[in-house]
């Protein structure tokens, strides 16, 4: 290594913007944590991000050794929840004469639809489940729609019936949009979501509405880095615990939603060295429980609602319980939140909290004051109740398997007992309080594909599955993965019923470390 001395000292920064805190960590070339910082998340998100970045860089002798920054952020979620900074989207569905009983955006809250919709239309096109076109694509209608609403729109979202199986029409529409409207942002549904037209269409429209937000956060991050003289590559964390290069994130901003829980799960796996486990992330007001399978978050099968809109894209399967370090004993589930440093008994404050209860139970030492004796009985009862709540939640997420360890992470992890029913052991890794930022820093880049494959002909089936794997790997490389080390990490085949010929719904995911 003598010829490349600085290689071993290249550093990277992981940042996780959470609801309460923005955490930042610095990892070196060997993935060791060399600096950490925790700052309150600011209302505009960006200020807190800058503060955490400054704090963690101040720990370094030479910040110029930082070569990469990985960011997991709630910007996109907040923009949707607050109906702020969203772009106007022209929504084009390919499916006529089918699908007219539920037009685009039918289930959207009116206020969000008013902000986002620049116009919507259904044109002739789309496919049947077996790949036959429902109708040839009506290119004239596409052009007429674009001429009508193109000037109003910041982006165009396109969703074709069964496009995850047959993407050709959506791609053809993208070419027409570029020819008619020039350099406008385009979201194609087959690149965003899985089967289920309304949910996939919703996710595609949200994605198109978030291009401006993605640009803003990218610029803000770049400015923050520039002003500190840092020349780095930037990546964004996505909801399955993997990374996207910044230009990829700019195209798929909706995928950043839900990256927080995914990061904390991945960070817990890394810090503990355990790849199959239950993870409990204890924050100030709540505890999120999830499951690691092979080092990745187990994903939710249920539809995910964001800001009142139902989508079907992948999210970690998380069970949240109202139990955190700031939870007020006797006034559950209320929490003192970020005021814990003034309010809790162990900080000399007047309010008994779960942190006080944990200290009184001998689970850790925090704060500046002892726990007054008159509270001991009530705090002991609170700990017993909390333990029951945790055991119940562990049982729910464990799906019947009691042989896995539980990894305790997050700022309030001392709340958790040393033994928890349903878990083989409780692991408390070092730096557990910033596991989410660590998760962002160590993440792999990934690509995913979902399609329908006929299974009648064995050879054709094998060739189609091989092609799907290649496409998923290509998507991982596009997201920033090293082409030499991309692997297929997930492949599932779900049989479909009532079809003219046997077929499966195929889901493939490829992932790999970032290229050097």
């Amino acid at each position, binding site marked *: 290594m003598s010829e490349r001395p600085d290689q071993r000292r290249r550093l990277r920064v992981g940042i996780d913007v959470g609801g309460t805190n923005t955490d930042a960590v610095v990892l070196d070339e060997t993935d060791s944590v060399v600096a950490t910082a925790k700052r309150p998340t600011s209302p505009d998100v960006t200020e807190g991000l800058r503060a955490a970045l400054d704090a963690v860089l101040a720990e370094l002798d030479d910040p110029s050794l930082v070569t990469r920054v990985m960011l997991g952020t709630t910007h996109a979620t907040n923009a949707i929840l607050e109906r702020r900074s969203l772009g106007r989207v022209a929504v084009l569905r390919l499916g006529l004469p089918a*699908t007219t*009983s539920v037009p685009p955006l039918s289930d959207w809250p009116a206020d969000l639809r008013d902000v986002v919709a620049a116009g919507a239309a259904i044109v002739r096109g789309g496919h049947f*489940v077996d790949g036959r076109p*429902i109708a040839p694509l009506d290119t004239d209608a596409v052009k007429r729609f674009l001429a009508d609403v193109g000037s109003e729109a910041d982006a165009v979202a396109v969703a074709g*019936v069964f496009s995850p199986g047959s993407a050709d029409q959506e791609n053809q529409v993208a070419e027409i949009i570029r020819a008619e409207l020039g350099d406008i942002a385009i979201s194609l549904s087959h690149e965003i979501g899985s089967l289920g037209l309304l949910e996939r269409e919703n996710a595609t429209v949200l994605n198109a509405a978030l291009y401006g937000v993605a640009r803003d956060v990218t610029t803000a991050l770049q400015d923050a880095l520039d002003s500190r003289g840092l020349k780095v590559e930037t990546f964004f964390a996505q909801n399955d615990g993997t990374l996207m290069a910044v230009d990829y994130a700019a195209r798929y901003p909706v995928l950043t939603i839900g990256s927080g829980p995914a990061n904390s799960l991945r960070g817990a796996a890394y810090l503990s060295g355990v790849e199959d486990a239950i993870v409990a992330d204890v924050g100030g007001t709540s505890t999120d429980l999830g499951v690691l399978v092979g080092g990745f978050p187990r994903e939710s099968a249920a539809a995910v609602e964001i800001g009142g809109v139902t989508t079907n894209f992948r999210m970690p399967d998380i069970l949240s319980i109202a139990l955190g370090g700031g939870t007020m004993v006797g006034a559950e589930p209320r929490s003192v939140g970020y005021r814990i440093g003034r309010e809790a008994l162990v900080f000399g404050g007047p309010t008994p909290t779960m942190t006080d209860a944990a200290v009184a139970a001998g689970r850790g030492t925090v704060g500046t004051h002892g726990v007054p004796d008159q509270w001991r009985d009530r705090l002991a009862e609170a700990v017993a109740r909390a333990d029951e709540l945790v055991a119940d939640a562990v049982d729910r997420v464990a*799906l019947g398997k009691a042989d896995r360890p539980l990894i305790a992470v997050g700022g309030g992890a001392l709340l958790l007992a040393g033994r928890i029913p349903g878990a083989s052991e409780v692991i408390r890794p070092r730096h557990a309080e910033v596991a989410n930022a660590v998760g962002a820093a160590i993440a792999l880049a990934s690509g995913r594909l979902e399609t329908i494959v006929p299974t009648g002909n064995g050879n054709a089936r094998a060739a189609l599955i091989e092609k799907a794997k290649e496409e998923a790997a290509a998507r991982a490389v596009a997201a920033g993965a090293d082409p030499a080390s991309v692997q297929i990490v997930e492949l599932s085949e779900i*049989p479909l019923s009532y*079809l003219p010929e046997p077929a499966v719904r195929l889901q493939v995911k490829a992932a790999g470390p970032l290229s050097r």
Partner: protein
Amino acid sequence: MQARISTDDVPALARGCAVLGTGGGGDVRAGGLAARRAILEYGEVPLVRLDELPEDALILPLSGIGAPTVSHEMIHAEDEPVRIRDEVERIFGRPPAAVMSSEIGGGNGVAPVAWAARLGLPLLDADAMGRAFPEVQMVSMYVAGVPANIVIMSDVVGNVVTIRPVDGLWSEQIARAVCVASGSSALMADYVLTARECRGAVIEGTVSRAIAIGRATEGAQDPLAALQDELGAVRLITGKLTDLDRRTTGGFVRGTVTIEGTGEDRGRTLGLEIQNENLVAVEDGRVRAMVPDLITVVDTQAATAVQTEGLRYGQRVTVLAWPCDPLWRTPKGLETAGPRAFGYDLDYLPVEKIAP
């Protein structure tokens, strides 16, 4: 009884239809969206009783058929019922006077509101099952002996197919082949019958019942108790789902679910046999409820129905069972949709006798 179905009634109807789906019957969400949108576009839907209609009024029983994965992706065309209505008018020389749900349980209980609104017709306060069943011949008209002599289907692209089958079995076979050719999703009128023929051959009051079931839990202090009370149901067990053996074969979800009692039911275990719908509930080798009586799994907290596909290990659920319509307890009813029709070697016993 309420006279019109408004957009305010749709969520309650959807919740009620999910409860009456006994685990199957398909998703109620897309039907609910279509119903809401059609009411806004074409107006509220009058809900009529059978005795409010003239004897020779034509009733149009409608249902969507096909693969759930497909109908979730290839949403129905709004005009599918219009083509069926036109075909009925051409064949019978007069238009239908009302739409009826063929299956109140699940999505086919909600979507008829959209179809009726689109046609500007009232919805008959009745259906052909009073619940959900997996096969086309498992309808009250068949049990009552009304000949299955016409099936009209329309698909998303506008094809209309009229079948004049010799019996229910052929009706099922041909309808399924047409459905596959149409992309595995279609709208179907199975039977077209007069109000006179409907008497005793349909299950009345089921639409208003579904709405009442949905309303019962709204804002209730104890939603589960409110639901149980509204249904007149026996609570078979409250507990935790501890085992789930579920597989898809031949288009059906089959499986066994185990629920271990919690709280006052601690120490008890209930097994539930499933074929799309929840069919048989067994405790300690003793059957406590069986098809055609209704067995529904609900979330213990919210009292919302949990569909077969939504069952997950660890869920806190309550299993409710209550009596089916008397029509299903007749010899022909039991032959059509009793335990033996689903391959269980059991003599039917009514839930009110064996559950408590």
